[in-house]
Every structure is written in structure tokens, then in C-alpha cells.
């Protein structure tokens, strides 16, 4: 018993200490902005939010902007539980940054959780992942308009795979693009897969004809020549992919960014609020951040404070409009 028990105890201690995992930086460099940042990640370990928070935490620590960084995973309710926790325990969360992304806008519109970004302090966004619409390399379509043309002829002949549930941004973006090209958005055949990887497999097996997914999940397969990205939702071409057209260039005025950014607890002191904004603004300028960003194929999207708030309001309005057109939202919010 004792041997097993000791083993278990050691492992639990190890697990607990690692879960709490503050990175111990020995030296405090000049230019330190905060003593401590605690990242609240509204999903389990290993997802996109988790990877971004941990990557940025590393950059904060290595660049000496922050001395101690810790992480907490709190999944559930599509991110709603973490938001609720942050609001409930606001007075104890002076060091906490909640990471979130576009789904916070979608899910609060859908009423999955009652709160919205307005209930939190808006800090700023750091990166964006644009949506890519792509086909297999052997597909006859070489640009989005030709895909849209066969959709208009027979919507059922173009099956479109996506990496998350019906009614998510993968679905909306491609439906909107088809609508702008002159098709009816509601007749789209959207095939929902459990994750971007499985959706990519669904495209490659020939089950679906096109895929709507985050650019970072498709960029490597495009480079390897297995798939062809027809269009992206960025406002202009990306330096990483000079040969890939934007939807705007194709004549369809649709830009969409899946941003990732940070929020803080309501009731933050004004001084701490400023410090948080400065910290997030500063980390984007570090070489450590730049390395993570280019590795993951993310684009920069740096908006702070009021600018980010306005951006969120605009995105909320656009997505809300789209959801109403597609019949995913009945009441006007």
C-alpha cells in the first residue's frame, strides 16, 4: 500500500503543482509591467484558446514583461462557465486575463450563456485567424466564383465540410459568401465534423467538395499541394500566402476575422486596467510573440480598449444579421 500511496501522492503533488504551474522567472528585468498574470482558459488543455494563452504567457515571461504567469483551465458551457466565474469572483481576479475569441460573440447571441463581452472589461485582441474556403487539389474549381457558380446551379451538388457545429462561424462565413455570390444561403449543405482535423479528412476522403475552416488549420496542406485554398476572408492578401486571393478581391465584400483576445474582470481598478492594456500591447511587440505568431500562421490583429470594444460591437451586429438571415436567430437583440 505504502509504495502505491507514495507514488500517488507524489504524482498528485506533481500534477497539482504543474496545473498551477507558475513559471518561475529568476530575474526581474527592467521594463516589467506586472508582477503576476493569471490566465483563465475557458476550455480544456490542448485547444486553440489553451495554446494561445500558454504561448502568450511564455512570451510575457521570457520577455520580462511579467514575472509570474499561471494558467487555469475551466471548461464547460462553451466558455460560459469561465465567464460566469470571472464575474462572480471579480474582486479576487485582479490579475486575471480571460482568453476568448469570436465564439464569445456568437454564443452570447445564441443565448448559450447570458453574459456578453459587455459584462467584462475589454482589454484587447492580439491575433486573428481568417477563414479559408478550400477544395481538394484535384477539384475542377480554381477560384471561389467557379465553386459558387456550381452551387447556384445545384446547391446539393456542393457539400461543404466544417470543423464545428452547424450554426458556428465556419458555417456562417461560407453561407454568407455564397449569398453574396448570388445563391440562397439557407440551401447550403453544411456537413459538421467534430474538429478541424476530421473535417479536413472529410474533404480528403472525397466525402465533401469544399471545406470552410480556420486558415491556420489549412495552410500546411495548401503548401503541400494536397488542397487548394480558393479564398480567405482577410481584408488584403497575406504575405505568407501571396498567391491566395481574398473574397473581397473576388468581388464579394466579406471580411471576417476570428480574433483571439483578452478580457478582465469587471470592477478592475482603473490603474490595473491600464497596466493590463499596456502589458497586452507590449507583448505583441516582443520577438517572442512574433515567433509564436509566425509559427502558427496567425495574423496580427492588435486592437485595445475602446477600439476593440467598437470592433466587437460591429462584429456582433454583422454576425447577428447573418444569423437572422440564416434563421438561427429569431428575436432581435
Amino acid at each position, binding site marked *: 500500500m505504502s*509504495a502505491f500511496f507514495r*507514488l500517488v501522492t*507524489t504524482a498528485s503533488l*506533481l*500534477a497539482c503543482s504543474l496545473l498551477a504551474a507558475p513559471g518561475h522567472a529568476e530575474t526581474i528585468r527592467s521594463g516589467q509591467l506586472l508582477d503576476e498574470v493569471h490566465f483563465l482558459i475557458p476550455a480544456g488543455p490542448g485547444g486553440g484558446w489553451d495554446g494561445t494563452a*500558454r504561448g502568450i504567457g511564455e512570451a510575457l515571461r521570457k520577455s520580462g514583461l511579467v514575472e509570474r504567469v499561471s494558467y487555469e483551465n475551466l471548461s464547460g458551457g*462553451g466558455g460560459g462557465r469561465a465567464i460566469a466565474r470571472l464575474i462572480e469572483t471579480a474582486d479576487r481576479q485582479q490579475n486575471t486575463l480571460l482568453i476568448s475569441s469570436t465564439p464569445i460573440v456568437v454564443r452570447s447571441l445564441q443565448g448559450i450563456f447570458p453574459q456578453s463581452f459587455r459584462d467584462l472589461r475589454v482589454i484587447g485582441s492580439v491575433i486573428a485567424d481568417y477563414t479559408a474556403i478550400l477544395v481538394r487539389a484535384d477539384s475542377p474549381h480554381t477560384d471561389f466564383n467557379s465553386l459558387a457558380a456550381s452551387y447556384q446551379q445545384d446547391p446539393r451538388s456542393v457539400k461543404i465540410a466544417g470543423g464545428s457545429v452547424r450554426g458556428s462561424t465556419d458555417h456562417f462565413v461560407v453561407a454568407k459568401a455564397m449569398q453574396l455570390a448570388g445563391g440562397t444561403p439557407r440551401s447550403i*449543405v453544411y456537413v459538421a465534423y467534430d474538429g478541424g482535423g476530421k473535417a479536413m479528412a472529410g474533404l480528403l476522403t472525397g466525402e465533401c467538395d469544399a471545406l470552410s475552416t480556420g486558415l491556420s488549420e489549412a495552410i500546411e496542406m495548401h503548401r503541400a499541394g494536397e488542397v487548394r485554398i480558393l479564398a480567405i476572408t482577410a481584408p488584403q492578401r497575406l504575405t505568407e500566402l501571396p498567391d491566395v486571393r481574398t473574397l473581397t478581391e473576388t468581388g464579394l465584400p466579406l471580411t471576417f476575422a476570428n480574433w483571439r483576445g483578452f478580457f478582465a474582470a469587471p470592477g478592475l481598478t482603473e490603474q490595473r486596467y491600464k497596466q493590463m492594456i499596456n502589458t497586452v500591447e507590449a507583448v505583441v511587440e516582443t520577438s517572442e510573440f512574433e515567433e509564436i505568431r509566425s509559427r502558427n500562421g496567425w495574423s496580427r490583429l492588435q486592437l485595445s480598449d475602446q477600439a476593440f470594444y467598437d470592433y466587437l460591437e460591429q462584429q456582433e451586429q454583422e454576425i447577428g444579421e447573418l444569423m437572422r438571415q440564416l434563421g438561427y436567430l429569431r428575436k432581435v437583440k
Partner: protein
Amino acid sequence: MIDGILLGLTTVLTLYNLTLVLVGCAVGTIIGMLPGLGPISAIALMIPITYGFEPSSGMILLAGVYYGAIFGGSTSSILINAPGVAGTVATAFDGYAMAGQLGQPGRALATAAYASFAGGTLAALLLLLTAPFLADISLSFQSADYFLMMVLGLSLVSAFASEGEHLKALIMTFLGLALSTVGTDLTAGVQRFTFGRMDLIDGISFLLLAMGTFALSEALMMVLRRNKSEKAPTIPTSGLRLSKSDVNAIVPTITRSSILGFFVGVLPGAGATIASFLSYGFEKSLARDPTPKFGQGNIKGLAAPEAANNAACTGSFVPLLTLGIPGSGTTAILLGALIAYGIQPGPRLIVDEPQVFWSVIVSMYLGNLFLLALNLPLIPYLARLLLMPRSILIPLIMFFSMMGVYLVSFNTFDLYLIVLVAVSALVLRVLGFPMAPLLLGFILGGMLEDNLRRALTVSDGNWTFLIDRPITIVLLGIIILTLLSPVIRRLVSVATSR
């Protein structure tokens, strides 16, 4: 390919990387032994440590953690009926019975260790020989085929029922299917049976259900049958060699299960849990008059899922390394780690980063070897756990199973839910309902539904997808054969007895 293997060997066989394999396996085993904590948590915990490493060293460490966690998970399944990982739930069926009812914890742990080792090693060999072709095969399976694989899994349900209790097994399977519909529906994006609770949006976690129906309800059962004394466990002091008859019994089982497990693992939509359930079901339907019966400590029933889940873990590296497609939660997190090292897995990985590709494969062999070497000496100590007085053991099991569930979600709602599940399971068990079919129905149900609805969406609602493609037809044929096999068997025996 020979060049590749040599490159892998020269990379891995440095003192530094060998140490990493060892450390990875050890840490993985320890974390995996904790009920509820599986490879996903173990790898997520280790990733930040590997940030400064060379990519190949980092992957070697994480791969070691992965096998270690799967390996460790079987220990808690066998000893206290608390699977640490979904992939080791099937291990508990016969493993726990062998350790508890038969009082042979040493034999159970040793069988699991050898079966895991053999499964992992055989699969690594298969991976080495077939990885490039397998990528293509894994991409010929569509939703329709996954749907039929799940149906095939369900058709094995009688394998999970004891004699004469097929109706009860069927009822529990349907209960499992029903429970799997809780949460957000993928195809329509609608919430079902969540009663407006945020906690149920993501559905019920498989691990919670497994811990509730197995570990926690078992602890409660132990309280109920306090007076009926079972055989006191015999604790081996050394020499964990299996008897010759044991070895003869499990060698064919392990071979079959490893191959099955590997191929199931290669498919991006299946995984280790499905692999272990399928191989258990197949072994049970293949066995004639087994003694002891399956579910009561049969050695084949333990070896099959153990070999299969390890083989499936190795298999899941195929789509990850050759296509950059993660087929499971664990490989998704490994994909994240690779990206964090600045490596994009995809079709070009083997050309661009041959060192990473081959050293991961070579480290698989070494990892399996190290795991065996690490774990065999520990078995006598681990087995001693069962000598603990029940007044200590029962609360410990309760504590660890609830802690395990809480550590995954940090949600107190899950604690209420697991108590509810355990108490309901206790009532059902007292009435003679088996729990394994419930888990089978639950794990297959979600995937069954998603794949069926995808297949229907793609074929515009036509059921002709069932006969459109060769793979689908073959799978359909196997299902019909499985369902008819009792009839055929009876006809044959009637014919021969005349």
C-alpha cells in the same frame, strides 16, 4: 526507409534522449495511474517543460508520456476498477475480476504489462512498414463506414452480457445510447436534454460515466457485500512470469487484437476506446466455453483490450505524422506541441523533418521496452494495495474517483452527477443489470449518430450510401454475419450431431 531507421536510431540513442524516453514513460505512468487523469492531461502538463528542447527530443518525451499514461491507466482499472483513461475501461471488465474475485492481482497486472508491450511493439512494427500506404487507407473511410463500424460495435453487445441476461444487456445498451444524446447536437447545433443547464451543454463525459458506474458504484457494492468474504489476494513476491498455459492462451489473442487495434487507431474517426471494445467483443465471440467466463477474470478478456488500446495509440500517429490530421484528443494536443516547436506535420513532414519523424517511431520501440522494465518490478508493490483493510480502501477509491472527475473539469456539478450516476448504477447492479453495455452504448452512440447524420447529409437523405462503396458493403457483410452467427452455429451443430 533503412536510412530513416538509422537516422532515428542515431537520434534516439543518445544518453540525453534515452533519459527523456525514460522520464516520459515514468511520469506518464504515474499520472496515468491517477483515476481520471489520462494522456491528455499528462501531455498538457509536460508541454511547457519541453519548450526549450529540440523538436525531436520534445516529441520523444511526449510520446513516452503518452504510452506511459495509457499503460498506467490499466493499473487503476485492474486494482480498483477505476479506469484512468477511456481506453482502459474494457481492461476493467476482466482485469478487476481477476484481481478481486480470483485474488490474482499480480497475474492481472503482469498480463496487462505484457499485452501492452506486445501490442505497442507490434503496432510500431506495422507503423514502420506501412505508414506511407496507411495514410491513403485512412483517407478512404467516410462517415458511412464509421457509422457501420459503430453498428458493428453495437452488434457485439451480447459479448458484454452474461449468460441469459441478454434482455438486460440490451436495455442497458439503449440507456447508454439515450445518455449519449445529451448535449449540443453537432449536425443541427441544437441543445438536447440540457434542462437549460450550462454544465450539460458539452454532454456527459464518458470518463465520469465510467468512474461512476465502475469505481464509485463498486466501492458502494463492497460496502453492501461486506460479509461475503472473497478470496484473499495472493501477492507475488517476485518472478512475474506467466505460466505456460497463460502464454499459450494469450499469444493469438494479443496478435489479433494488436492488428485490429492498430488499424482502428489509424482511422481518424475511431480511436483507442473503440479499438479496445471491439477487440474485447471479438475475442469473446471467438472463444468457446471459456473458463473462467469473460467478465469473471478471463485472461483473454484482459489481454485483448490492453493489446488493442496500446496498438491503437501507436496507430493514431499515422494520420498525425503523415497527414497532420489529429484523430483523437491526445493527438490533437501533440499536433499543438509540434506546431509550438515550429514544425507543421503534414505530407511533407517525412521529407522536411525526417529526424522528427523517424526518431518518434524509433522511440516507440524503446518506450515500450522501458515501460515493461519500469513496471514489472513495481507490480508486487502495486498489488499489495488490495491487502489494505476495506475501511481504508473503500474511502480511498471514493476519494480518488471523485477527485479524478473533478480534476478534469473543475466543475462541482460533475461531483453531484457522479454521485447520482453511482447510486443509480448501484440500484441497477443489485437488480442484475450489467454496466458494460451501458458504456458501450454511450461511447458508440455519439459517434454512431454523428456519422449517420453526416452520411445522410452527404447522400441527400438517401439510404443508398449503405451499398454505394466497397468498404461499406464489406462492413455491412461482416455485421450481417455477426448477427447471424448464433443461428449458423446452431445449424452447424444440429447438422453435425445427426
